[in-house]
């Protein structure tokens, strides 16, 4: 297991496998299924400064080897998180990342100020949520806009800062470079891809918000390309995700240049998927005679 220890962004992760924001709640439910200290880390459900109810109407839709969600950042807000969720999360004995979204610059700043004073290990700045009408993804499409918000956040942020990129960005390479130049300690990608579903009986969009976010195995080939593209363009560590279901998928992301990975939708498909994947990594290293994942990282 020691072979899996991964250092990135000034933090030590027990292994490179984190669970992805919005697919793991705040960990409590999963702690009934397995020992969370086995994880490399946990990314919290996306938080906003203030509590949010989330979107009305249908929120989940299955697609061929994928799902579309329109949760709309339902969350208890930063204060409630720090008070009620974080203490329990810290007891899980793994790296705790807070996924922070925002509607405007001030929201991000205020959230950061509060989190600066908390026990959180890592901030994952969500500039990419496609499910909220204002802000959210708007920060994640144009690299100049992203550069602006990331550099401002970085100036005030006392925690390691990982920026979560949107696959809907105009250019993944430019976006990654912009975040690196703005001072991000790392980047994670991809968030969900903007998609749509139509209910032909009702002759209406399935989602009240019309567009929503696609995730799951169907997006993996796209996510892998984007991680590779980002990795070729920046030196900061990359946390790769998008459709990871198996250890083999993780290896692919690492070969494409990812330092860390996140498990998202797979947590729904097989709730102990992350543990299988971590176990599989050790087996893979044994089989291939590898002492450290550094030997294959970015090899492609």
């Amino acid at each position: 297991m020691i072979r899996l220890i991964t250092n990135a962004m000034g933090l030590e992760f027990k292994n490179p496998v984190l669970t992805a924001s919005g697919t793991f709640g705040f960990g409590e439910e999963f702690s009934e299924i397995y020992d969370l200290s086995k994880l490399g880390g946990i990314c919290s459900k996306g938080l906003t400064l203030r509590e949010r109810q989330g979107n009305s109407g249908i929120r989940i839709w299955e697609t061929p080897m994928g799902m579309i969600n329109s949760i709309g950042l339902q969350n208890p807000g930063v204060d409630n998180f720090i008070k009620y969720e974080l203490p329990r999360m810290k007891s899980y004995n793994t790296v705790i990342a807070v996924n922070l979204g925002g509607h405007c610059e001030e929201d991000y700043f205020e959230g950061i100020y509060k989190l600066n004073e908390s026990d959180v290990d890592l901030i994952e700045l969500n500039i990419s949520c496609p499910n909220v009408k204002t802000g959210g993804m708007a920060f994640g499409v144009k690299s100049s806009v992203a550069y602006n918000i990331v550099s401002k956040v970085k100036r005030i942020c006392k925690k390691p800062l990982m920026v979560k990129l949107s696959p809907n960005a105009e250019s993944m390479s430019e976006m990654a470079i912009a975040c690196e130049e703005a001072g991000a300690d790392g980047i994670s990608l991809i968030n969900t891809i903007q998609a749509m579903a139509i209910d032909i009986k009702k002759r209406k969009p399935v989602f009240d918000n019309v567009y929503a976010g696609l995730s799951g195995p169907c997006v993996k080939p796209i996510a892998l390309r984007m991680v590779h593209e980002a990795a070729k363009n920046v030196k900061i560590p990359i946390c790769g995700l998008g459709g990871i279901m198996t250890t083999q998928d993780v290896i692919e992301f690492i070969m494409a240049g990812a330092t860390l990975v996140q498990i998202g939708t797979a947590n729904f498909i097989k709730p102990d998927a992350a543990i299988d994947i971590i176990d599989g990594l050790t087996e893979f290293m044994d089989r291939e005679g590898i002492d450290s994942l550094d030997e294959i990282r970015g090899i492609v």
Partner: protein
Amino acid sequence: MKVINSRIIENNLISNKIYKLKVEFAGSIIPGQFFMIKTLDNSFLLPRPISVHDFNQNELTFLYRTEGTGTTKISTMRENDLIQLFGPLGNGFDINELKCKTAIIGGGIGAAPLLYLSKVLGKNADVYLGYKNDVYMDDSFRKYAGNTVVCTEDGCIGEKGFVTDFIDYNNYDAVVTCGPEIMMNKIIESCREHNVKCFASLERRMACGMGVCLGCTVETKDGYKRACKDGPVFSADELRC
């Protein structure tokens, strides 16, 4: 709750599009709880929520209707095949609230989760089952329930009419229901009128089944709740309908 690959004991068609799936399972289960079920191949992605129909001696029984891709695929599984189960999930019925004279009202396949409840409540609870025209599950209920009333829309079997026509709410302290939304809404309304406490088991599209994805929202008087974790059983008092 746990994730296991369980062996199928039987998976048989028992009525038009209705299958009974029996699997091995050790653990304890509250009536009204459900499992997320998936085949081990990739013919569909999200597990499907299916309620516990019956449980005893390490045998868990589900009753499901084939609707789309997932349930159709599940229906092709055979004895000894392995199937992925995740559960038990959800709050289930609060038995303490039902230690009074209770009416259990099921509509079609919606009655599936009510059998195990009826078994636990015993003769104290009467059962009302409404169907379109195809009747199933009635014999199982008769074994446990106080009185069992069966009706069909066209009267081909049992009484003719909607199940809601045959209930005298004055006879009951509590009502439990699961079935089509329009039926449940009508029952909730009647219960409010008659001041009878009422519990409904709701269906929502689910991804995780365990409370983390926030995909299965139910609008309550306290804001959004999760059908999978705060439910699927809700007290009619909480519901906004």
